[in-house]
Structure formats: structure tokens, C-alpha cells
């Protein structure tokens, strides 16, 4: 085991972490605003990868057009989810979180099945969005796609953080997430804002699905594979916290990048489960999590 291999492992881990953070951000947006976990966004992630294959490989679109189209489809998916799964249940269930979770688990399984029927069951390699030739830093070969992923994450995360602090919409979103009723009393159009949140979460999910194509071939099952570490990231980092989604994402990514170097790759998820259970035992809200989202008792 030399430093180069370790370096590659760390770099891969950071890139993976970037993707998990993006996925986690999407989920966290919805959780923080509505207290709901919509499992089905993982299908939107898979859709992102599949659309990338379709647009780039099959249709030969220019990269920019493909990216824009993928983001659009993602946003529209988010919108549809708001209408079909979120709104119909408001005020009708005692435990809305569980109802939405189970309904969206069902939906995601159905959606993945549809994707599998349309796209075929086998993973297919997508045309890379950036050169696949690695560049060397300190004798460690790094992929350009890693750079792209991390850059996108930094751009989105900082753009997000900036908007939350300095734009009116950002303020309204913070108000909405903290106190739904209070936001209404301030005249915030909470209905519209929530729909926007869903759309944004859809966009982030589809984008993440696109970005991970150099690391994982596009397939109908990509989403359900990725949601495991993405969820681990949120559980560790703290449910409902954006910082937590990013920090947790990086932790999980690094575990995934480094552990296979020393042990069986199948050990990753059980280790993650162990970490999750431990974290939940010691600090149920995770590192940065919001206590009001995690009910004790």
C-alpha cells in the first residue's frame, strides 16, 4: 500500500462525496422545508444518468444542451412529485412522514422498474463530459471529472449559502423552514415556495445523476445504489442541515474511497450502517442535525 494508491482512494472518495453531497442537498432541501423524505428522488438521480446516455450517446447533443435538458427534466420531475405525492396528503394523515416515505418507496420501485423496461437492465457507459485522461499531481493520477464534480458542488453550495443569507427568497426559505406558520403570517407564498423547493431538489438529483456517469455507468438501478450512501451521509451529518449533508457526504465518500483499499468492498455498507447506528445512539440528531425533525420518545 503506497501513498499513490491512498491518494487515488482519497481523491475518488472526495469525488464520490461530492456526488453524495449533491444528492443529500436535494433531499435535505425537501426535508428541511416539509419534514418529509421523498425516497423517489433517487429515481430522478437514475433518470439523470439515463438521460445523459440518451442525449449524449444516442442523440449526439452538445454537452451544454444536454445538461440544460437534464436539469429541466429534473425540475419538472420535482414539480410533479409535489403535486402527486405531497399536496394530496397534507392534513390527512397523523404521521405524514411515514406515509410519504412508504408511498415514495413504492413509487421509486415502480419508477425504477419503468426505467428498467425503457432503458434495459444493463448499465451502459455514458460519453464522458470531460477528458478521461488523468492529470498528475504529486505523483497521484487524478481524473478531471473529480474536479468538475467538486467544483459544481462548491459552486452550488456556496451559491446556496449566499442566497440564504443575502437574497429575499433565501430569507423566505429560512423562515419557511423554521416556522411554516410564521412564514405564512409574513405573507410568504409558502405554497409556491415549497413547489420551488421540490423543483430545485429534482434538479439537483438529476444533475447528480449526470455528474456521476464517469464513476458509475448509467443504469436504472443507479439511484437505489446511490441512495444508501446519500442517506448515510444525511444520517451522520444530521438530518435537515445543509452543512450536515455536505460534511456527511464527504465522510461517507471518504469511507467508500478508502475502505476498499484495505478491506473487501462489501464491507463499506455494513460499516456505514454501524456508523449510523452509533451516531444515532450517541447523538440522534447527527452532527449538525435539527432536533425538531428527529422525534425522541
Amino acid at each position: 500500500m503506497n501513498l499513490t494508491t491512498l491518494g487515488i482512494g482519497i481523491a475518488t472518495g472526495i469525488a464520490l462525496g461530492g456526488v453524495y453531497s449533491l444528492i443529500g442537498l436535494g433531499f435535505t432541501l425537501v426535508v428541511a422545508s416539509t419534514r418529509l423524505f421523498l425516497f423517489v428522488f433517487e429515481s430522478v438521480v437514475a433518470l439523470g444518468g439515463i438521460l445523459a446516455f440518451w442525449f449524449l450517446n444516442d442523440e449526439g447533443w452538445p454537452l451544454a444542451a444536454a445538461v440544460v435538458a437534464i436539469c429541466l427534466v429534473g425540475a419538472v420531475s420535482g414539480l410533479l412529485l409535489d403535486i402527486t405525492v405531497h399536496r394530496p396528503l397534507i392534513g390527512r394523515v397523523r404521521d405524514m412522514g411515514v406515509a410519504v416515505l412508504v408511498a415514495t418507496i413504492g413509487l421509486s420501485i415502480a419508477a425504477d422498474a419503468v426505467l428498467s423496461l425503457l432503458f434495459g437492465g444493463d448499465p451502459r457507459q455514458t460519453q464522458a463530459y470531460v477528458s478521461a485522461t488523468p492529470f498528475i499531481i504529486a505523483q497521484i493520477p487524478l481524473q478531471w471529472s473529480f474536479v468538475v464534480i467538486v467544483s459544481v458542488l462548491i459552486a452550488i453550495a456556496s451559491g446556496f449559502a449566499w442566497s440564504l443569507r443575502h437574497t429575499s427568497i433565501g430569507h423566505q426559505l429560512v423562515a419557511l423552514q423554521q416556522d411554516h406558520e410564521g412564514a405564512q403570517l409574513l405573507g410568504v407564498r409558502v405554497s409556491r415556495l415549497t413547489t420551488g423547493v421540490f423543483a430545485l431538489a429534482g434538479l439537483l438529483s438529476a444533475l447528480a445523476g449526470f455528474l456521476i456517469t464517469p464513476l458509475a455507468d448509467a443504469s436504472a438501478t443507479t439511484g437505489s445504489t446511490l441512495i444508501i450512501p446519500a442517506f448515510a451521509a444525511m444520517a451522520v451529518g444530521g438530518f435537515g442541515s445543509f452543512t450536515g449533508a455536505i460534511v456527511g457526504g464527504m465522510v461517507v465518500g471518504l469511507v467508500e474511497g478508502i475502505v476498499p483499499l484495505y478491506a473487501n468492498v462489501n464491507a463499506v455498507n455494513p460499516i456505514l450502517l454501524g456508523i449510523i447506528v452509533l451516531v444515532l445512539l450517541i447523538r440522534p440528531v447527527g452532527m449538525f442535525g435539527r432536533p425538531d425533525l428527529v422525534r425522541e420518545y
Partner: protein
Amino acid sequence: MTDLLTLKGVDSWYGRSRALWGINLTVRAGEGMGVVGRNGAGKSTLLRSIARVHSDCRGAIELNGTSLARLSADAVARMGLSFVREGAPVVGELSVVINLDLARRLARLRGQEPVPYEEVWKIFPVLATKQNLRAGLLSGGQRQMLALASAIVSRPTVLLLDEPSAGLAPEACASIFQAIRQLCDQGLAVLIAEQNRDWLDGVADRSVLLETGRLHHRAVPLS
């Protein structure tokens, strides 16, 4: 003086339990009306029903002649009704100034020029010193001031206050009630729910009693 807020035969429900029985109430412009009642009498339910935060109710509620019956809470807010809830919740994650910015936005949505910061600092000097502090770090009294300042900035036509004096030291109460009196002088209709009648002296022009969901327009002190 115009009737800014009118309630006729308002009933309110929580599931199968009835909380308000046939409430009739009118608040005029420039008037401060007190609603006195102990816990569980229905004060919060009354205010929440008017603000449409609680929607399981029947009867006519009108703001300046427009019915509020089918509107959502945020639509009612944009129409000019501000509601400061019990415990004066503010957006804790945001600074004092940004809380006020949200209120300024509401004023513009209402088609009004928002009250400038300087006016607010004049009424509540202590808030000026804590401008950029996260609102969640304010003391109870300061939060009440911020909540009221927010309401003032947003230029409402009708203001609802749920126990603005709860847990406050007498000095803090004084500045708050002074501010409320000022608002009435400017032509607002203010509805204040309180437990104690004496808090309302000097603030409310008249008071009504809410007892187990029923409104009594004449009340006497307990002997």
C-alpha cells in the same frame, strides 16, 4: 370611524370539539380592543381563526369589507392583517435586521411604503444595538419587541396580538404598550388578547370577556 374587522356568528372547531360559539365582534379603525380570558377560554383560537391559521371555522369574518372565509393565511397577511402569536416567535436563524426586511417586503406586497429602520430604533432603542444579532439569541422581552416592530414595519391595517405581555417585566411592557397606543392613533384596528385586565389599561379602549368559547360584552371583576 370605519369597521375594519367584523366577526359575525363565528364558530371554531378542533375536530369534534367546538372551541368558539357564535362570536360577534367589531373593531374600528384607531380602536384598541382587548379580549380578556384565561387559558383555554379560546383567545388564541379566536385570533388564529381570524388570521386563517386555523381554518376549521364557520361564520363571517371580514377585513375592511372583504370576506376572509376562503383565503389562506398568507393571503390574509398580504391583505393587511398582521398577527403576533403567543410567545412572539421570530425567525431565529435570521438577524434582527433581516427579520425586519421580511416585514418590509410584506409592506410592499400590501402596497405600502415600509416604516424605515430609524423609526423602529426610536420606538425600541434596544433593538438598534442588536441589529445584526441572530434573533434567536434575543431575550424574551426583546423578541416581543422585534415581533411588534416587524408588525409595525409591515404597515398593517389590522393587528392581532396574543398575550403580548406574557412573561415580560413591567418596564418592557410599558414600551410595548406605548407602541401599540401609537399604532391605534395612526388609525390601525388592534385586537389584543390578554389574561389580565389590568395589562390592558391605557392600551385598550374597551374590552370583552371570552369565557369557554363565548364572548361576553359586559364583564365585572371577580368579587
